[in-house]
């Protein structure tokens, strides 16, 4: 832990939206020293630098606590990506028998070995594979698979299929593994993913960083900041004494208002993080090619920006949203395009991390809620299916193909039978990468990690 700074220095930092659990001081401690309610007006770029420097010196960038200093970026492909046309079993005749029209010919593929090749749009992933930075895990799924987008995605989000789990696996991970101060999760999206929902933590959720801002006149601003930038704990005061005595029952007992507490936490979190996020994203310029800089590509640039600014965050969540991968009809072109966007963005992101010197700190997990039916349908597309490959990227991964390919002939009602429970992959990234050991508590059952990271196999 670093030496605690003088209080005048602290005051300056407390004025910044960037004041996290840095310098070894929690917001609560700042609060006790009377720093709450101070307006946010300090020049940020300077503070960003100072915060970054200090954090780099102490923690390597990510949050303190049991989660350690590694970063995990989770990428959701929504709609059910066609795994068989992504990691293509070209050595298996049954693939071509079941997909006479939309099956991808061996000549078109980016060959990985005698059995498997990547879809021709996945040039970026092929490069990562060749560099030993891509691991793919065959046939991931869960027992009693649901063919509903809604339900199956929910299972991947909670990490507890066919149970009434309300919290997301990343939210629970933050609850268990991160310090109570700071921002262990950033979710880029217009609404919060159920995957990041936790009991104790408030993820930073935004879509367009430029709109992650309160707008008003100059003279209003200081007042607004005073009203909202107060410490979350102080602001979360639904205690009766602050509510003019109203929130007491007939016997004078104090009542709490959990909704108001929640709103204050989110509000304080937004006040704390929005300026940091806005400035970090606005200041970030990268020459790296992410392909199309909208959608996933744009979101990953934002993640890179926050990593570069050393936001104290372990877990990032982004999504190719809106059910895009739901390719029921005429899928060839649209699937090709979607994979190209995804692969270009992922490759660009990895290259960018290399550029900013953070490639050793980051791993990426790419998932979708299910694969698609083995047999093509009557409209040159594919219907909802079950098992699907998962991809894990990063310098730390044990590159190559992992797990057992699912059979294309022994099917469950036309669908692949999973060979790996997806929670083993979750266990791998949590245990082998983030170094967090309590995976059984996290996943509510015991799952063996798969040796997806170098030296862990």
């Amino acid at each position: 832990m670093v030496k605690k700074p003088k209080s005048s220095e602290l005051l300056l930092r407390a004025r910044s939206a960037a004041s996290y659990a840095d310098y070894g001081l929690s917001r609560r401690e700042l609060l006790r020293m009377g720093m709450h309610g101070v307006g946010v007006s300090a020049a940020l770029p300077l503070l960003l630098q100072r915060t970054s420097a200090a954090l780099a010196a102490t923690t390597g960038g990510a949050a303190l606590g049991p989660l350690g200093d590694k970063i995990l970026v989770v990428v959701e492909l929504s709609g059910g990506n066609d795994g068989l046309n992504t990691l293509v079993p070209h050595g298996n005749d049954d693939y071509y028998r079941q997909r006479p029209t939309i099956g991808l010919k061996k000549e078109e593929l980016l060959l990985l070995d005698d059995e498997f090749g990547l879809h021709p749009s996945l040039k970026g992933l092929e490069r990562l594979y060749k560099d030993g930075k891509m691991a793919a895990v065959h046939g991931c799924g869960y027992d009693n698979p649901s063919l509903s987008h809604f339900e199956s995605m929910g299972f991947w989000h909670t990490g507890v299929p066919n149970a009434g789990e309300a919290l997301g696996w990343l939210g629970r991970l933050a609850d268990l593994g991160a310090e109570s101060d700071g921002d262990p999760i950033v979710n880029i999206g217009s609404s919060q993913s159920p995957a990041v929902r936790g009991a104790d933590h408030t993820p930073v959720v935004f879509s367009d960083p430029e709109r992650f801002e309160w707008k008003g006149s100059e003279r209003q601003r200081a007042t607004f900041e005073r009203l909202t930038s107060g410490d979350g704990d102080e602001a979360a005061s639904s205690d009766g004494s602050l509510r003019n005595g109203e929130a007491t029952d007939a016997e004078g007992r104090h009542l709490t208002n959990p909704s108001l507490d929640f709103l204050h936490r989110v509000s304080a979190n937004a006040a704390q993080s929005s300026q940091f996020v806005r400035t970090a994203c606005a200041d970030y310029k990268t020459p790296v090619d992410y392909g199309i800089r909208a959608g996933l590509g744009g979101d990953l640039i934002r993640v890179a920006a926050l990593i570069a600014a050393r936001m104290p965050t372990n877990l990032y969540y982004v999504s190719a949203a809106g059910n895009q991968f739901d390719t029921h009809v005429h899928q060839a072109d649209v699937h090709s395009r979607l994979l190209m966007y995804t692969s270009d963005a992922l490759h660009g992101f990895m290259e960018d991390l290399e550029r900013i010197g953070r490639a050793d700190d980051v791993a990426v997990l790419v998932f979708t809620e299910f694969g698609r039916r083995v047999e093509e349908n009557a409209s040159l597309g594919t219907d909802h299916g079950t098992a699907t490959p998962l991809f894990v990227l990063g310098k730390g991964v044990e590159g190559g193909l992992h797990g057992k390919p699912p059979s294309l002939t022994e099917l469950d009602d036309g669908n692949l039978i999973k060979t790996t429970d997806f929670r083993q992959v979750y266990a791998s990234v949590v245990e082998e990468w983030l170094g967090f050991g309590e995976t059984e508590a996290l996943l509510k059952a015991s799952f063996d990690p798969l040796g997806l990271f170098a030296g862990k196999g």
Partner: protein
Amino acid sequence: MPPLVRVALALTLCAASAFATTGDAASTWKERLDPIGAADWSPRYAAHLLERAGFGASPAEVRRFAAMEPNTAVRRLVRFETVEQELPDFVPSGIWKRGMDPFPASRAEAVRQGYENGESMGVKVDPDNERPLQPIVDRFFYLLRANVLEARRFSQWWAQRMLVSERPLQEKIALFWHGHFATSDAKVRDYRKLRLQLELFHEHGLGNFRDLLLGITKDPAMLVYLDNGENLKGHPNENFGREVLEMFSMGVGHYTEDDIREASRAFTGWTQYKLKFVVREEHHDDGTKTVLGKTGNWDGEQVIDIILEQEATPRFIARKLYEYFVREDPSEGLVGELAETLRESEYDIGALMERILLSKDFYAEESLGSQIKSPVQLAVSTYRKLEQKRLPTIPDFNVLTSSLGQMLLHPPNVAGWSGGRSWITGASLLQRADLSRQILFPQVEDFRDPDRQLPGIYRRVAERLEQGMNITEATSSGSSSFSQLAGKSEDYNTRYGGYIGYVMAWDVVKKIERKPAAIDVGGLLDAEKAWTADAAVDALTQRFLSVALPEDRRETMVRFARSVGLVEAPMLGAAQRWGSDNEEALRELLHLLLSLPEYQLG
């Protein structure tokens, strides 16, 4: 120790338990279903009633309801038939033309019809046209676009009703059922069907649940939305049957996959044609089915009755209504009692709502100001509290709410809007504040009608046509992000059709008249005789917030009011009034208030 630090320390101590439960101490009214007495009735409770059973109210309306006996106030909302009112009906633009119904499912199908029949949607293939099928493709895109615009007009018509109706609960419960029986025009693509569905909710929303459930299983919009047209004897499509059980009546866990399959068979052949429910007997499976333990030759209506006999059904419905109107954490015992009310009344939703809205539990401290407003609730209630009589159209209502995650007639999926905390992210909180800014400081000069904009891809087509290019040149795409492989046929040009569809739709769909809110914050305060900075803050807090403002935050607001020159309203003529000179500052004050986390609660 300074008071704030003392408070903060106290809170640090209780923070850990605060989020885990509703509170350390339950109020004495929590979970009590006996009715609130007239002696306990107060303006605060009347405001709470109008907030939840409607879309909020002005102080005058609150006073009006506070002056009634509580059971009179509740009955007036629930048994609304006695409340006289005449609201203008929706005036359609007439976008559907002869021969367009039934409308083809896709552009490809429209073209196929053109090739096979020489016509589609009431237009013929034109052999003299350079692109003979172009009129068909144009008409296809015209209707897609016209329907989008008409649906926006229709949802604004509904929002206008929410704003001014003297029967607010009729609108509020319709919004509830719209989320419960979620149906999106994004898939239905025919606002007329959604209009029929809303009529069902308006008519039976507080009536009998059997009528409602049966009505929705015969509802053309729903039949389209859940693909029941493809639910055929021998090839049952389970989408419809599954949702009837899972989302509409019993909830997950009270039936088996077999029940879904068997129930789906009973609904085979149920479909719609030209806005009417029809049963195609040849597609109906009249074999024996076993649904929820009962065996017989059931049809859809009988399956509904079997569902209504299940214990799970009244519990599921009562719980959902309670969670929507009161709180999210009812005990099992409370749900059981409410379900009993529903069962005893033979599914009279009004009877259940009356019991809920009159119960002490509804007015318990745990209930008051505990609900996060939906975007529609936020927008409409803001207008109501600003005493608007006409729905402002600058900013655009649909743009406002959809940027916060809710658009009428467009629930995200069959589960409806998740509601509650899912509305809130750090960014959405700031955007909610911006909703208030856009309402209070409308950008009239810079306003661009969102219903009259071409997307970039078509704007380029328009520009190139204007430069004198032919259709092929104007629609050729440099880069290919939307390259559609079928659009390159010479018999028609898809991109031109898409562009011209926009233009044709503008000719037909009535334009929404664009007007900002007529806001007079000073006038609202004058009516309350709130003529000092302190009084103004208190009056606005009283009017807009459902929870109290902590003293330190109130003090901050008052300091702001003074800092911008609001000390005391001047004498204007013989009377004291804030006047127009103070309006800007008052609006800024109000905008700050509406930016607070507290304002998200109702």
